[in-house]
């Protein structure tokens, strides 16, 4: 991956009436990088992607791709490959014709044998070369999205734009296809912007994940950093699970559940705050003299999630490797403390 900035979204703003879909969004994507935009519905992530595709006019801002200002360029001149959330294959064309469509529109129309070679190559890449002559209605949802991906890649796009391409698919196909998208993206080195509301999807395949809220980027970072070192309470709460537990902050540290841990930058600095503690950062040991009892346990395979009732009446959720929860059934007395991991602390107001 090269580190130079390839795509720049600068100060983008878009208002739909009084609703701010984008409110000064800034984002830079390096060449060959896969950036995922994550956020709740209405946060502006799709608007940002559509603006980059040229399908959404902007009220303010500038879009630079490969050193060129494309802000006012028509969508059909931008050379962006896009995969949509809804099935978007042209129903009157076969899979192969769909893949070749973009090539037939080129100013210097690609010769038919070259076109065929290119479509065969891409159908092979998405594993559907045997379905080249099928019509969209003869393909399953997952197959249709693969063909849509091949169609978007056929034009060798400057940027590949994925607008929640997996959300209409069932869970198993989704997981398979997202991994395949990543494999293909790495293989071709295509700069990609991936919009999703599914954090697992974003965290598992992106180089960097940007969390959006109210038309702005709250934080953009590598998945592990986003998860372990959120810079705002919104990011901490939106990405992964957290237990809000109150404690007293002093000198960059907070005392929670009898443990003292460091606070993350962006946390409140003094006073009583609410620590947002990840379930896996809670340490649970069997103890008759402990401060809590197990309320319920749910088995998740490799790990186990325990709902724990503290003596002060509060519930917290802890997640432990399944091997460590032997004997920690409902009603078991336990001692709960925090692992030495920094936490984000928000104000209790």
């Amino acid at each position, binding site marked *: 991956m090269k580190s130079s900035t390839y795509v720049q979204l600068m100060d983008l703003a878009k208002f739909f009436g009084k609703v701010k879909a984008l409110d000064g969004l800034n984002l830079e994507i390096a060449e060959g990088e896969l950036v995922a935009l994550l956020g709740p519905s209405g946060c502006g992530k799709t608007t940002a992607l559509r603006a980059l595709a040229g399908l959404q006019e902007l009220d303010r801002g500038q879009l630079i791709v490969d050193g060129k200002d494309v802000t006012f360029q028509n969508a059909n001149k931008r050379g962006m490959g896009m995969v949509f959330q809804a099935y978007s294959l042209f129903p009157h064309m076969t899979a192969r014709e769909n893949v070749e*469509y973009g090539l037939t529109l080129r100013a210097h129309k690609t010769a038919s044998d070259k076109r065929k070679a290119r479509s065969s190559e891409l159908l092979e890449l998405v594993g559907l070369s045997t379905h080249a002559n099928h019509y969209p*209605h*003869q393909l399953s949802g997952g197959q249709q999205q693969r063909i849509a991906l091949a169609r978007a890649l056929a*034009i060798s796009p400057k940027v590949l734009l994925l607008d929640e391409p997996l959300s209409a698919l069932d869970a198993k196909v989704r997981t398979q296809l997202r991994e395949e998208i990543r494999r293909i993206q790495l293989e071709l080195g295509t700069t990609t912007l991936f919009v999703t509301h599914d954090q697992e999807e974003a965290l598992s395949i992106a180089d960097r994940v940007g969390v959006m809220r109210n038309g702005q980027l709250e934080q953009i970072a590598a998945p592990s950093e986003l998860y372990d070192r959120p810079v705002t309470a919104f990011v901490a709460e939106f990405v992964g699970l957290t237990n809000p537990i109150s404690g007293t902050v002093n000198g960059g540290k907070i005392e929670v559940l009898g443990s003292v841990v460091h606070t993350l930058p962006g946390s409140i600095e003094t006073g009583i705050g609410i620590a947002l503690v990840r379930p896996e950062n809670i340490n649970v040991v069997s103890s008759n003299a402990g401060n809590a009892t197990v309320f319920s346990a749910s088995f998740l395979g490799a790990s186990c999630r325990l709902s724990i009732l503290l003596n002060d009446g509060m519930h917290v959720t802890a997640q432990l490797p399944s091997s460590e929860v032997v004997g920690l059934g409902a009603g078991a007395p336990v001692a709960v403390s925090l692992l030495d991991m920094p936490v984000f602390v928000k104000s209790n107001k």
Partner: protein
Amino acid sequence: MKRTWKVQTWRRFIIAFVGLYLIVPLYAMFDFSTKPYGFEDTGRNLRAWRVIPSQPDLALAVFRSLVSAGIVMLLILFLIVPTVIWVQLKLPKLRRPLELLCLIPLAIPAIVIVVGISPIYRWISINVTESPITLAGVYSMLILPYTYRSLSASLDAVDIHTLAEAAQSLGASTFRMISGIIMPTIRTGIMNGSFIAIALVLGEYTISNILNYKTFQVVISQIGRSNGSVAVSVSLASILFVLILLLLVPATKHRKEILDVDNI
């Protein structure tokens, strides 16, 4: 088991009833057209059918009506279809007004339309041409309710916004997007609308008769005044002709059966 049998019987009964309802009048027409006519006929014969080609004005009237129908079809393809698509894609706020506008010809009786439109046609026949082909203008208005319905139904059935955006992102201009992607996608709707329009144009009588143009139906009615059997045979022939045209629509709808759908 018993229930299925009952449903099947009902279904057959309804199909048979509807079939009879449609076929009996046609058979009656055929029966009438082959009955002996005048003193020279002694038994059933096809004389009324044989004389069709020699009827004065008929061939010309059929030609004119077909040309009008052709012009109407071109107007549908190049004006109405792109307009409806454009409104659906880019001007959704105009959908309701357009729908209302297109329904107006259905609400106004043909006779009222003639009264309103006759000064225009008087002017056209004096200053431009007397050809009945100019009726294509008023016909293209009359067919709007049916064509619009058929088009908007097929546009609603597909996500044309996504298809349009997909085509644009792949490099298609607006023209190529509409002509190469949207129109083929709603091909069945366009064909349905067009064939209904042709049937309507070929069957139209009131307006052309009052405006004094000799179209197909007007000539049939004139023949009917002198020879009922011939008029009925011509009518039956025209119904069969339109029927064949309409049967062509489902034939073009035919698609390959689903071959296989794998998991992914």
